[in-house]
Every structure is written in C-alpha cells, then in structure tokens.
C-alpha cells in the first residue's frame, strides 16, 4: 500500500470514528450547553448549538430557590452510609470466602451471585412493609438498609475477585512468622487489598448515588428525598417544565461521577461486571 493512500485511510477512519463518538456523547454535550443558555435562547427556532451568551443563572436558582441542596445532602449521606456499612461487612465476608474453608462456603458464594441478579421489584413489597413496621418509613436509614440488598452482593463479589488475586504465600509467610490469622488479615491482607477496597467503595457509592427505585417507593417527603427522586419531583410538580434548570441539576448530579470515573479508569472492566467476566 502506498503511503499517501494509507494516510488518507487513517484520516478517514479517524474522522468517522470521532463522528460516532460525538454522536454518542451529544446528549451529554447538549445537557451541558442547555444548562448555561439563557432561557430566552432555549426556544429559538431553529435551535442554536452554541449559546449566544453563557449564564450561570440556572445554577444560582437551583441552589437558592429549589430544595436541591437538601437532596444533595441526602444523597451524600446515603452514598457515604451505604458504602461504610457495605464495605465493612463485605471486606470481612470476602476474606472469609476466599481464605477459609468451612461447610457451605461454595454454596454461599453462589447465593451471593444469585442475589446480585435478583430483581428489586420482588423484594420491594416486603421491604416496604418491613420499614413501615419498624417505623423507618421516609427515613434515610430505610434507604441505606434497602440499598444493601444490591450493594452488598455487588461489593462482596467484586472484593472477592480482588482478594483472590493476592497470593496465598503472603499470608502463609506472616503465619510462619508467628502472626495469628486476624493479625495476618490486618497486617498483610488489608494493605494488599486496599486499592481493591477503595475502588469497590467508589463503585458502591455510585450505585447508591444513582439509585432511584427504592427511593421512589420508600421515601415520600422532601426531608429524606435523594437527588434522583428529588429532581424528578421538580419535573413532575412544576407547572412549566424548566428544562435549563433540570439540565443544570443533571450536570450537578453528574459532576461527582466524572471525578470518580477518572479515578476508576483502571478498574472499569472489573467494576462493571463485578468480577463476573474473566478477561
């Protein structure tokens, strides 16, 4: 193949590929652009791609005139609470599943995977009744408890795959040096598993941050509403749908995800499939 022809083909491929990427990313780009356009420019026909003038008015209104900050605080608590509870339990559990042997261990590991696939609509009605019975209806606590139903199997399965990658010899060596198994866990396994634990924690936090269904059913007042149901509530209850305000809310909701996403690049394959796919 002659060089100019090869360069032309490479150029063509790059143009085509980037066109595809931009089409995929367009909805997100449009969200960002809409959120900084003055309201008057929203209804110009035909729509203009770039804003004639950039304004942060919608963000200001979002933060001062809507319950957005309350929702944001609730979501932050939910993500932090769920992550803390789930990671503490799952780290111990995953260590047990990987490095101990006792009857029923394999069956338990399979049960974890099974529950990870379970539809939440099956669990929601009894959970709803349970929360009402415990007097936890409309509280963040009820959501943290409900979120463990999907976050715990997920974190366990992911942590299990991270911990399996730590060589057995490391623990054995510590035991030879006189440590007992709990000391070996704290001194050897935990430091080795730390990157895995941190990335599992971040994936778990994202699951909690993005959750909608349980929040829809279990929480019905603004005081405990997270961002997902809160922002939708802004859409449903408004007389005139204010798209720029909603797009600003969407951008704000997605910002923490961008930060976490950048950090998690290395673990994406593992995190997406929770160790279910072997490369």
């Amino acid at each position, binding site marked *: 193949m002659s060089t100019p022809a090869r360069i032309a083909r490479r150029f063509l491929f790059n143009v085509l590929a980037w066109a595809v990427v931009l089409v995929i*990313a367009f909805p997100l780009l449009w969200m960002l652009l809409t959120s900084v356009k003055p309201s008057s420019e929203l209804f110009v026909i035909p729509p203009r791609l770039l804003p004639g003038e950039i304004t942060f008015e919608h963000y200001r209104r979002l933060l001062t005139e809507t319950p957005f900050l309350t929702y944001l605080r609730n979501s932050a608590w939910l993500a932090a609470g769920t992550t803390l509870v789930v990671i503490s339990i799952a780290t111990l559990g995953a260590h047990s599943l990987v490095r101990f042997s006792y009857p029923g261990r394999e069956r338990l590991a399979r049960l974890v995977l099974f529950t990870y696939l379970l539809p939440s609509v099956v669990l929601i009605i*009894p959970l709803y009744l349970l929360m009402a019975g415990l007097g936890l209806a409309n509280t963040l606590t009820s959501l943290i408890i409900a979120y463990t139903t999907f976050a715990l199997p997920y974190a366990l399965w992911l942590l299990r795959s991270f911990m399996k990658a730590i060589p057995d010899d490391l623990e054995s060596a510590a035991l030879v040096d006189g440590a007992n198994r709990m000391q070996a866990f704290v001194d050897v396994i935990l430091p080795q598993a730390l990157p895995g634990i941190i990335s599992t924690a971040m994936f778990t936090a994202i699951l909690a941050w993005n959750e909608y269904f349980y929040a829809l059913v279990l929480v019905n007042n603004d005081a405990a509403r997270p961002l997902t149901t809160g922002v939708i509530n802004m859409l449903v209850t408004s007389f005139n749908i204010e798209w720029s305000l909603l797009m600003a809310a969407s951008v704000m909701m997605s910002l923490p995800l961008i930060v976490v996403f950048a950090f998690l690049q290395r673990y994406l394959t593992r995190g997406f499939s929770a160790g279910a796919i072997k490369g």
Partner: protein
Amino acid sequence: MPTIRAASASLRLRSLDARYGLLGALLIAPTVLVFCTVIVYPLVSAIYLGLFSIYTPTMEGEWVGLDNYRRLLASGEFWRSLANNLIWTAGTLTLQIVFGILVALMLHRNLVFRALARSLVLFPYFLSTVVAVLVWRWLFNDLYGVLNHLLLWAGIVDLPVDWLGSMPNAMISLIFVGAWKYFPFVVIAVLARLQAIPDELYEAASIDGAGAWARFTDVTLPQLRDVLIVVVLLRTIWDFKEFDLIYLLTGGGPIIGTQTLPLMVYKEAFALNQMGGASATAVLMMLIMLLFMSLYLSRARD
C-alpha cells in the same frame, strides 16, 4: 516460585483449617445476617404475600391461595406486559450487542485521543438513569426538541414526531435510549477481550490470504464467543428487570403500550393498592428470569 517455608506453612494452614473454620464462619456471619434480613426474608415473604388478597392502605387481607396466579394467567394485561418485556429486552439487547461490538472494534484501533474517546463512550453507563432520561426527554421534546428540528430540517419528516406518546414510537424510543445507556457495558467487556487476542492469530490469517472481513469472522468472533455469551446472559437479566428507565421515560404508556412486568408490579402494589396480586406478578416474573439466571450461574461456575 513457592518457597519451602511457604510450602510448610500451607501444610500447617491445612491442619489448622478446622479451628480456623470457626473464625471464617465468624467473619461471614454479618453478611449472612444481613442477607437473611434484607434478601431471604423479603423473598420468602413475597412468595407468601402472593397467596393473599391485600388492600395496601389498610393491610387487611384474606387467604386466596393460587387465585392471584389464576387471575394473572387469565388476564390480558399480564400477557401484554410480558410481551412488552420480551420486545424491549430483545430489541435493546440486540442493539447493545451489535453497537457495542462495533464501537469496541473502533476503539481498539489506533485513534487520535483514544483515551478521551473511550471515556466519552463509556460515560453514559456511569450516569444516573434519572439524568439520562431527563436529557433524552429534552431531546425528544415535540416542540423544542433538537431531534425533531434535525429531522424537519433534513426533510426526513414533515411534521414533528411524537416520540414518547404514541405507539410504536414509544417502544422504539425506549429501545434506543436503553441501547445508548447500556451498550458501554458491552464495549468494555469486548474491548478487554480484544486486547488479549494474540497478534499471531491475525498474522497467520493474513498469510493464509484472509481479508479484513474473513479475519473478523474467523479470528475475532470465535475469540469473543465466551465473553459474548456471558455479556448476553447478564444483559438479558438486567434488561428484563429494568424499571427506572422505562418508568421515567414513558411510565409504561401510552396506556400500557410500553408497560413491562416490573412496571406492572409497581402499579398493582402502589397505584391499585393490590399487594397480593403485585407479589404474585413479581414472583411469576422472577420464575421467568430464573431460566436466564440459572444459565448464567452455571456458566460462572467454570
């Protein structure tokens, strides 16, 4: 290379297994406790509730045995929701797989700013479904939506299209948005596998005179087979039980045109206040899913 020290230690480990078994059980105990409370108990309870007729606000109910199931199997709405569920799952899954493989192949090649392109493509999967739906409802807006303007401007349509309020548009829109949101899962799995295919296989195929298409069908696809089976099973399960995207985008409408089984459960339990019937619907839905779940579980064993 295992050292003698480590080898003797692992012998010691095995002899101490019995004693350590107790510690292992202790470490897993919190997990088992939480599982029993928030998963096993609700699961059993859902099956039990399905045998009652319960009015949600008062929680008064009576035993009806299998009547809920009989009524369900005789109702048109259940079968319609199941059919919708299958159409949605098959449609969006097909798009996700085809599009996912294509984009993965594209990102696997040498592309300028490949890392940025990869991030842009994968991000929709990370996004909250709420955000995805808000953005798409704005794009789909019949008066000021970009999509209609683009189509009008290009002369493809003469009148603005009602994307979400009429059939079959609503189902098609749903399938497309679902594909947009979830195809990155296929991309990331396929991309990881593509990077593990040895170059020699392609070189050997080239020497044998295989063109680009033949290399794809004879080398790439067979290598992707295993990962694709797992991806299809997982995505089938996840798409089948999808609630958020459908509920938020169309609410199951127009009428019940896009109502799938999870939406039917929600409607029965919290809009029609029939918790018993809703539980029965949920249990039936889970039974259907068990087929895919057991297929997946038996694959994950290897």
